[in-house]
């Protein structure tokens, strides 16, 4: 089966719409969402509605720190992100906010762990920056593969039976076999706000039969996403950064 995985959508409708369509074209039959549906972007209402619909049809979704910040004022965000979350509270209805508040921090299905940030302490929202962080995350689980997001830069780590880590920056469109003899941590890039210098939306496809992951890029209409952010009076840097993928 082919599974489409999406992290850090951040209310970017053109990017998320493009990724979903592309994943469906590639044959995705199941969808996994790794958190941060809101924040930064200008279309949280549409985005959350889609997630609610897909979860009702069997998709899996976990909680991200921006989603958590909607109902939990103790979650720390930077000033721009905080401003967008305050605006987002006025955009989402009760059912939408309750849906987000009720999302689990992690889900584990058939040896695959889904979590928004580093997995050793999910509520701390730690970034996976390098192999040391990745090792901490992998050591905290017995799952064969952990999928996370949060840092907005794609990376793939593995831990061998001998305890050695490997780090790798994936090439988009090239599948990598997640060998059974080791544990893996697949860090996804961001759908709605890529920060690896490539403005195209980032997601991944998992082939469960071959146990292969393919990191994908979907070019989308950045102008439109940026225009929406400006129309809503959100911080303009959030629009500008989409053009450069930073």
């Amino acid at each position, binding site marked *: 089966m082919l599974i489409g995985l999406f992290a850090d959508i951040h209310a970017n409708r053109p990017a998320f719409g493009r990724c979903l369509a592309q994943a469906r074209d590639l044959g995705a039959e199941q969808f996994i969402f790794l958190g941060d549906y809101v924040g930064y972007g200008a279309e949280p209402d549409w985005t959350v509605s889609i997630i609610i619909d897909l979860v009702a049809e069997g998709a899996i979704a976990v909680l991200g720190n921006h989603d958590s910040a909607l109902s939990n004022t103790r979650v720390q965000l930077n000033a721009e992100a905080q401003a967008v979350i305050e605006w987002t509270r006025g955009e989402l209805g009760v059912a939408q906010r309750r849906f987000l508040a009720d999302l689990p921090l992690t889900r584990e299905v058939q040896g695959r762990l889904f979590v928004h940030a580093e997995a050793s302490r999910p509520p701390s929202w730690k970034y996976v920056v390098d192999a040391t962080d990745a090792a901490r995350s992998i050591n905290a689980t017995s799952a064969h593969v952990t999928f996370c997001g949060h840092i907005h830069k794609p990376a793939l780590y*593995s831990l*061998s039976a001998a305890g*050695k880590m*490997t780090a*790798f920056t994936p*090439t988009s469109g*090239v599948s*990598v076999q997640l*060998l059974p*003899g080791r544990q893996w941590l697949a860090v996804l890039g961001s759908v709605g706000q890529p920060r690896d210098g490539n403005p195209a939306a980032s997601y991944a496809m998992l082939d469960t039969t071959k146990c292969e992951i393919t990191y994908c890029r979907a070019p989308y209409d950045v102008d439109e996403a940026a225009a929406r952010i400006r129309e809503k009076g959100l911080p303009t840097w959030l629009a500008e950064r989409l053009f450069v993928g930073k």
Partner: protein
Amino acid sequence: MVKPSLEPDSIIDGFRIEQQLHRGGMATLWRVSRPDATMPMLMKVPRFSEGEDPAAIVSFEMEQMILPRISGVHVPAFVAAGDFAIQPYIVMEHIAGKTLLARLRDLPLLYSEATAIGEKIAAALDDLHRQHVVHHDVKPSNIMFRSTGEAVLLDYGLSHHDQLPDLMQEEFRLPFGTAPYMAPERLLGIRHDARSDLFSLGALLYFFTTGVRPFGDSETMYGMRRRLWRDPVPPRRLKSDYPAWLQEIVLRCLEIEPAWRYPTAAQLAFDLGHPNQVKLTARSERLKVDPLTSVLRRRFNRDLTRPRTQPTLAAQLASAPILAVAIDLTEGPASLNDELRVTAERILATLPSARLACLNVLKLGRITLDKTLDEHGHSKHIDRLVALRHWAEPLKLESQRLTVHVLEAIDPASAILEFAQANHINHILIGARQNSVLRKVLGSVSARVAAEASCTVTIVRRTHVARSDKTLVT
């Protein structure tokens, strides 16, 4: 799950185990068969149990990832891989014959034979590098030849794939490989430079032509590290009849600094195929190793041994293409040749490692007996080589970037296509004759080259000048 037993006549996933072919430190090889298979096959089964070398597992994982992604005549075809959790194995094409190791007792080989072998290996490496793989264990026991002549590279357990996680990179602090052939930068942990394979091929060529290994066969860390500063004895010191051009090629492959070697395996293959056009630098003249002062300077100059960032394998190859330009010296206006030069210049200006092969076809008649001398007794062949150099002169290319070739053929298009195929040409520039009588009679050479070439072809035309009888629409 019960682990299937490995013994003759047992069947694993439809493969019948026939005969054990080899039992090495890291893996066992079995000849296997399957009723529907048309080619001979072998099964590689890793040896890993408690206490075995962890490198065996990792190198098997690497080979299992890489082999299914590479194809073509220069690699054994991948057939199947076993489930790691039950019985790990790889089934691949069984290449008939012996590896190049069998030739060790015949060393040194004739220069012509060693050169031909080297050219085939370089062609195989070029193909492999273009598939994003650096082999990292080029040595006689990993090289075989098909009955059709092409070299086949075996064993991808130490290889690096540009688009896959490199499991060997992080796993071991010591470099894995075969000491006599290992490139110096490998000792510094660099695994993504395709020119490491050219160093290994240089070591092999040195060994096959002199009978002596350029860096001995020490496997101690010091013995291996020595090649970071100590250059090998020039082959001409060992054999007085050693051709200067061959020493030039071999020592260029063995440069300590990867950037001083050939930029691509295709460019190395090109020089091995055209010995009389190799530019002879000071390398070709050397009879002694470098003096101690330079060696000490090299040893303590950290800059030379500093690992540096570099572009991806694909970008590295793309920056050093071989261009071929087909020049018509007999027919058509000279301005078309000027236009070809302008186009070539534009490409060469952006790619300092690119090289240019200028071609001219000396057409032979189908029936008539051809004279190679004209009515004044000049050699037409030499005249044309001179004319080609004259055409290229304004490009002001260093001589190692330029070669000239006169191809004698009945059919010009076929001659150009064959040259491009045999010499790993990446890009052909050819002019289109317009409104010519010959074109009407013979058909277009450029159109056929464009249609049939297996590389990029640029058709060059003179820019059309608007004729005055046309009304200008404003």
